[in-house]
């Protein structure tokens, strides 16, 4: 499913978070939102998820206007920087949550839920830890559980907010490679926020660079690196070009 954003504006009191942001994420792409802190990338992701509402502008999922839809109607899988796992639920119940809360008519049976959760546990390679609680997991394990939980609802799109930001360098690299492989297999339209350019350029098909709430450049990693659109991009990427 594609995501299209049309002229988003968002202000927090006297701070401008998003300024006339328009963007299209094509079906099956893995796109990175890259920018310094305070550039509006997380706000943009939250507006797409329905966790935040823009002052003006529209959000479309596959040409369907979801601007007024609440988060639970959008079915956008969201992965939080600090995991936001349910502390009082086991790994199994965390992953099953999105299925358990469905209305009776569309809720899978207990057996189906168990089967699906086990499939996801297999995917994230944590089958043995189904009964553990989040507090008993390492950071990397928690983030994998959070991913599985988001995937359990078979989301239309996957939104990741600095998913590896709280992890140490080694785990970050592993998970990054894992995410890329996972995306190659599933081709679920994904948008992830990061302030780490290495991460963005290594993982994403396309990189969107934001600063002060507006888009500076959109393009394939190579293209951005060889042809920075303006002085900000050049400076932010630390590229020294002789003019």
């Amino acid at each position, binding site marked *: 499913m594609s995501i299209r954003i049309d002229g988003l504006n968002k202000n927090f009191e006297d701070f401008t978070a998003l300024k006339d942001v328009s963007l299209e994420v094509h079906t099956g792409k893995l796109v990175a939102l890259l920018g310094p802190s305070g550039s509006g990338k997380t706000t943009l992701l939250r507006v797409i*998820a*329905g*966790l935040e509402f823009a002052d003006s502008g529209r959000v479309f999922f596959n040409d369907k206007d979801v601007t007024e839809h*609440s*988060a*639970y109607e*959008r*079915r*956008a*899988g*969201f992965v*939080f920087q*600090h995991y*936001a*796992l*349910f*502390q*009082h*639920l086991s790994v199994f119940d965390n992953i099953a*949550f*999105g299925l358990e*809360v*469905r209305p009776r008519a569309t809720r899978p049976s207990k057996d189906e839920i168990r089967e699906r959760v086990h499939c996801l546990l297999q995917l994230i390679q944590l089958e043995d830890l189904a009964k553990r*609680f989040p*507090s*008993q997991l390492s950071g990397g394990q928690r983030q994998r559980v*959070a991913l599985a*939980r*988001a995937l*359990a*609802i078979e989301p239309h799109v996957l939104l990741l907010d600095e998913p590896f930001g709280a992890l140490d360098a080694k785990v970050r690299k592993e998970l990054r490679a894992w995410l890329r492989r996972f995306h190659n297999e599933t081709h679920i339209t994904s948008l992830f926020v990061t302030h780490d350019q290495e991460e963005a350029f290594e993982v994403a098909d396309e990189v969107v660079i934001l600063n002060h709430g507006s888009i500076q450049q959109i393009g394939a990693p190579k293209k951005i690196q060889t042809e920075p659109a303006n002085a900000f991009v050049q400076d932010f990427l630390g590229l020294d070009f002789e003019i």
Partner: protein
Amino acid sequence: MAGVVPDLTLIRPAVRPAVRPRRATEEGPFIRWTLIVITVLFFAAFLVLPLVTVFVEAFRKGTEYYFKALSDPIAWSAIKLTLVTAAIAVPLNTVFGLAAAWAITRFSFRGRQFLSTLIDLPLWVSPVIGGLIYVLLFGTQSPFSPWLIAHHIKIVYATPGIIIATVFVTFPFVARGLIPLMQNQGVAEEEAALTLGAHGWQVFFRVTIPKIKWGLLYSVILSNARAMGEFGAVSVVSGHIRGLTNTIPLQIEILYNEYSFAAAFALASLLSLLGLATLALKTYIEWRAGGRPS
């Protein structure tokens, strides 16, 4: 393990370090022991001694008299009134406290800070004033009085007044207990639940309530202890009608003023037991909440 009992007296000297490890914040032995002794003495004089006295005095005339004093119809009606009052005031304040804590921590609106401060009002003003407000509001001088009389509604010097005064005095407890907790926890788990397709009530019952349950229970039992023990506010609105509008604390005062010390202390021992039970429950909750979340 079984069968082999190590002789601890032999092991101990070897295990014990020659010098206790000292920390920078640890004072010398003189200051340390002075503070410990002061704390223990103060605790004994102001907390343990009175508590023991209550029970000693209550049983001064024997167990038989103790139970007779408690089963006296007037004492019994005071116990019932106290229970009824708490049974109404505590759930009301639990719902109110939850709603207020939710509103203050989850929404931003004009006057939020003011509301947050206003919730503490009953803690600042003397409970007597709390009671007086309702006497003035619903008593014979009040503008509502003719209407209340016409509809045969009696608030002041009756059970409704006692309940209202108790609600007034105890309403900060739940909200105050929950606000810092909910502010600390943030809303990330609730947001996650929303993105997973949960609706408002599902988020509340499946995510928020489990997150705050120990804090909530803690606040509720504190609120309950205060509701049952409240004297000042209830005293003003009660009218002290024996067997009708006296709660346990009021009945204790009356008995005491009539020199029925043993009977007064018998009732007082009930309230003390409630206090001890609250303390035990509170300790249990802290122990549970401190452990692994489950």
